[in-house]
């Protein structure tokens, strides 16, 4: 009942359904309610990676060399592991620069080079043609095989003429029409085909379901699960070989396949198109990063089981393993499943052909045909009106041409090859883009010359080591070309270039082509200097995450174009309606009115250039805008100079800022120092005036009393003795004062002569008390002494310590309350030091003065007129001495009155050590 017309009807019905989905998707996009704006559709659209190669070819590959089919899917998984710093960057660059294809991407990176764009296009078209041929072969084979139902016969073994004459040509034409309908219905300024993406996503679901259905059927209906299937296969030693990796010892090929597929997932024009150009939101990548590998994993689980199942089933080898997915259900009379499998295969093939055709036609149009046409001045294209029709015609023509080329390759060469072998040819071709692409987004120094020569060299090696041999094997070139080398030169044998034998032909080709490609790319980039535009573009690509908004570009245009000129230019390429819409949106967003404004500013010129780049590619857009913008394009060198200057200014202002900060700090320090100096100056003045005052007082009294004694010899002896006593006391005071000033000066200058020794503090204290007994004799004051029996030895200058104690006691006596004043001297032993305290019951020291009194000539005076007690240097000297001993001196005072002067002296280190040793 699976008649030919049923098959054709279902196929056409399925294609019709796809078109309906695409139409609906476009409608939704026009209504701004995007159907594809979610990560799941995005993931499924990337799954266009799984083509007929996956659907039919993997099984064929698995049937001949086991797990060797897997690296093709492990590679993309690894590339998607790097999504965060690789894929996101590519997408961001693509969006920011309105890149329309991989050719545009590479051309734009290397200074918007038209030559490079054209070269990439040529390589892509030549390289992808076998890949499209693969799809044609798969569809035509599967269709032919299915038509034979219920018998299972291979096309090559068919005795009678095929039912449909030249299925592949029909398929190619059908797909061309389909691609034209999908991809080139109109020229889209953003190069987005939402409807197509929706249809592709749908196809990805269909092919996954179909393949899983066949896999489940083979594993669980024909056999009793994985275990059963593997056990049965294990009985055949030929099949056991397929279980292991690199059974034929070609681990090199495994690695080669991994590397190729890692590159292919970003360098295949159609993968670049769905993943980067059609991307709606780069946030989708976050989910797609693991969903897409998961999709690949799912669609590969049953590859080996189906291959084993097929080999077990068709053990006589009459059936091509590439068709197992279809022939197994057919042989078991499962009509529905067979049809589902066919539709799945059709999905896989159409999806790839449509996207590849659209991506390639965009490249051919933007990077190959238009730049040439625009340069042919006699065509006067730049003066013609609406060019959208021309653009569409070029694209449609190139789609038909590409599919015809693919058909030609299939017809004349491809029939003798397996699907995977053909596909790998294409992978090796597009892998040539990887150095220029990856290098371009991470290495600023890469130059256009390097990329161009690298690509050329890699492509030539690819042609020589892979494409030409495939011609030779198909009989288009003499086989001696492979076996003996061209003209019998053995060194140039394409599968063993320069005598490099022992590799499989794919690894061999990859090695030589990459050596030539990367060698020239890196070598020339290191030798040649970049042009200014290259440098600008390199920065915009490599630093895409750091560069800010679109306005950064406006520096490139100094001059002016009229709004009308720009509008006309855009209308010619983009279409009038879309131009009006884009410009009014632009004006609306910036609050401009193009009705009044005649001159377009540089920002608008740039906007137009980028809008145009979305349609005809960046290189051509630049030429076109240049033709209407009358003002001078600022020379790149000039722009760079400006940039350089700007960065220098920024650098300079940074430095100035830092300097001024430093200055500020220094100023603050200086001000503080100045304040301190002023204070010191004031203190010095005070000191001098106080000293002169202090010195003059005793001098004055000495002089006056001496004069009295001199002038009045009649004075009686008692009076004379009294006056002489005063003179002696004042002289002593004067001496003491001078001694103290000298002491203080010496101490402060560090010239003091210290006689340090370990002494018993108790004896010194007692001596000091004895020395101050005289004070108590004069005044009715009580002295209490409270010393512990044992005081640790201290390392001090004995005389100076005595000086301190005497000074404190005399102070206390001076200030204590009369008539029943008392002074108490105590000593306490603390860990590591002793503390000696002299307390009195005087008025105490006010809080604010407790620190000041230790400075020179700072005394607590109740009134300004009150005569000072003593020299005002005593406590200052005490502090100097105690500081030198390593102790501390301070005064406490509580509300009940009375002052407590305390000081500490560390116990002798030697003493402490001696104690520790005991």
């Amino acid at each position: 009942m699976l008649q030919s017309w049923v098959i054709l009807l279902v196929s056409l019905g399925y294609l019709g359904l796809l078109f309906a989905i695409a139409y609906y998707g476009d409608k939704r996009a026009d209504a701004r309610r995007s159907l594809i704006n979610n990560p799941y559709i995005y993931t499924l659209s990337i799954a266009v990676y799984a083509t007929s190669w996956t659907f039919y070819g993997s099984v064929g590959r698995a049937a001949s060399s086991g797990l060797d089919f897997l690296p093709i899917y492990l590679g993309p998984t690894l590339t998607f592991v790097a999504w965060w710093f690789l894929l996101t960057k590519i997408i961001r660059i693509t969006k920011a620069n309105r890149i329309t294809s991989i050719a545009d991407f590479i051309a734009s990176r290397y200074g918007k080079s038209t030559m490079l764009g054209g070269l990439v296009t040529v390589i892509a078209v030549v390289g992808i043609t076998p890949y499209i041929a693969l799809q044609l072969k798969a569809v035509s084979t599967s269709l032919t095989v299915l038509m034979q139902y219920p018998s299972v016969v291979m096309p090559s073994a068919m005795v009678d003429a095929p039912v449909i004459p030249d299925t592949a040509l029909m398929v190619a034409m059908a797909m061309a029409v389909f691609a034209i309908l999908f991809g080139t219905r109109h020229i889209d300024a953003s190069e987005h085909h939402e409807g197509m993406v929706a249809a592709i996503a749908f196809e990805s679901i269909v092919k996954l379901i179909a393949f899983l259905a066949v896999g489940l059927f083979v594993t669980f209906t024909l056999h009793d699960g994985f275990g059963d299937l593997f056990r049965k296969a294990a009985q055949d030693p030929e099949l056991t070989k397929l279980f292991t990796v690199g059974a034929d010892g070609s681990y090199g090929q495994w690695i080669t396949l991994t590397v190729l597929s890692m590159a292919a997932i970003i360098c295949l024009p159609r993968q670049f198109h769905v993943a980067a150009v059609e991307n709606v939101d780069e946030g989708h990548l976050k989910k797609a990063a693991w969903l897409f590998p998961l999709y690949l994993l799912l669609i590969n689980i049953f590859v080996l089981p189906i291959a084993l199942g097929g080999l077990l089933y068709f053990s006589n080898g009459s059936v091509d393993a590439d068709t197992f997915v279809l022939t197994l259900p057919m042989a078991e009379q499962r009509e529905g499943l067979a049809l589902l499998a066919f539709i799945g295969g059709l999905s896989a093939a159409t999806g790839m052909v449509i996207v590849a055709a659209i991506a390639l036609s965009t490249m051919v149009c933007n990077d190959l045909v238009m730049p040439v046409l625009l340069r042919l001045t006699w065509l006067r294209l730049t003066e013609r009106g609406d060019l959208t029709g021309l653009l569409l015609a070029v694209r449609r023509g190139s789609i038909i041409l590409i599919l015809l080329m693919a058909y030609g390759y299939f017809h004349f060469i491809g029939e003798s090859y397996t699907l995977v072998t053909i596909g790998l040819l294409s992978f090796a071709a597009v892998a040539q883009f990887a150095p220029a692409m990856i290098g371009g987004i991470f290495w600023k120094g890469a130059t256009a010359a390097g990329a161009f020569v690298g690509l050329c060299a890699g492509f030539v090696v690819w042609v020589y080591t892979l494409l030409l041999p495939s011609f030779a094997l198909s009989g288009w070139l003499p086989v001696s070309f492979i076996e003996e080398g061209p003209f019998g030169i053995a060194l140039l044998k394409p599968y063993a270039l320069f005598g490099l034998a022992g590799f499989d032909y794919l690894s061999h080709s990859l090695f030589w082509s990459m050596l030539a490609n990367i060698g020239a790319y890196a070598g020339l980039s290191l030798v040649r200097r970049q042009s200014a535009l290259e440098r600008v573009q390199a920065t915009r690509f490599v630093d895409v995450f750091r560069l800010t908004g679109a306005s950064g570009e406006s520096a490139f245009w100094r001059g002016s174009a009229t709004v009308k000129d720009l509008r006309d230019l855009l209308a010619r390429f983009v279409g009038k309606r879309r131009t009006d819409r884009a410009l009014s949106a632009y004006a609306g967003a910036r609050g401009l009115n193009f009705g009044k404004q005649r001159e377009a500013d540089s920002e608008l010129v740039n906007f137009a250039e980028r809008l145009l780049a979305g349609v005809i590619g960046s290189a051509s857009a630049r030429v076109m805008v240049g033709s209407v913008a009358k003002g001078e394009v600022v020379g790149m060198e000039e722009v760079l100079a400006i940039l350089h200057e700007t960065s220098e200014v920024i650098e300079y202002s940074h430095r100035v800022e830092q300097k001024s900060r430093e200055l500020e700090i220094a100023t603050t320090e200086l001000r503080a120092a100045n304040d301190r100096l002023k204070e010191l100056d004031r203190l010095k003045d005070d000191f001098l005036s106080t000293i002169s005052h202090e010195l003059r007082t005793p001098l004055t009294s000495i002089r006056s009393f001496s004069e009295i004694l001199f002038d009045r010899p009649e004075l009686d002896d008692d009076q004379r003795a009294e006056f002489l006593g005063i003179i002696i006391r004042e002289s002593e005071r004067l001496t003491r004062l001078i001694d103290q000033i000298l002491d203080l000066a010496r101490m402060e200058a560090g010239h003091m002569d210290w006689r340090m020794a370990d002494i018993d503090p108790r004896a010194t204290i007692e001596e000091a008390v004895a020395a101050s007994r005289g004070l108590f004799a004069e005044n009715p004051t009580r002295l209490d002494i409270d010393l512990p029996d044992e005081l640790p030895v201290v390392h001090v200058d004995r005389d100076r310590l005595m000086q301190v104690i005497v000074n404190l006691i005399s102070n206390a006596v001076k200030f204590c309350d009369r008539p029943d004043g008392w002074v108490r001297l105590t000593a306490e032993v603390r860990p590591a030091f002793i503390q000696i305290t002299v307390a009195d019951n005087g008025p105490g020291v006010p809080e604010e003065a407790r620190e000041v009194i230790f400075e020179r000539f700072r005394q607590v005076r109740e009134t300004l007129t009150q005569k000072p007690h003593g020299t005002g240097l005593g406590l200052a000297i005490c502090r100097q001495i105690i500081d030198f001993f390593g102790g501390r001196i301070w005064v406490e005072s509580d509300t009940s009155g009375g002052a407590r002067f305390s000081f500490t002296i560390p116990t002798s280190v030697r003493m402490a050590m001696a104690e520790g040793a005991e």
Partner: protein
Amino acid sequence: MNRASITRERSVALLIAGLLLFNPPLLLVFAGDSSLFGAPLSFLYLFAAWAGVILLVAVIARRSAPPGEADPQSRQQAANDPGQSGG
């Protein structure tokens, strides 16, 4: 250390791990003709390692920082694109 550099380091580490797991010589450890639960060991190993890598990508992606987050302005670049208004 900021979140962006953590994501970058994790991605790179997983990439290296994946390269090691999916290629010889680690692959050869499981290349023998022994089997587990009836299925060939290398088959099981490859799919298990694959699933493991996918799981880790998902975990890293979940906790990832937005790329180029050091510069918040760069996100506006896409928004300023003429395509959004002209498309």
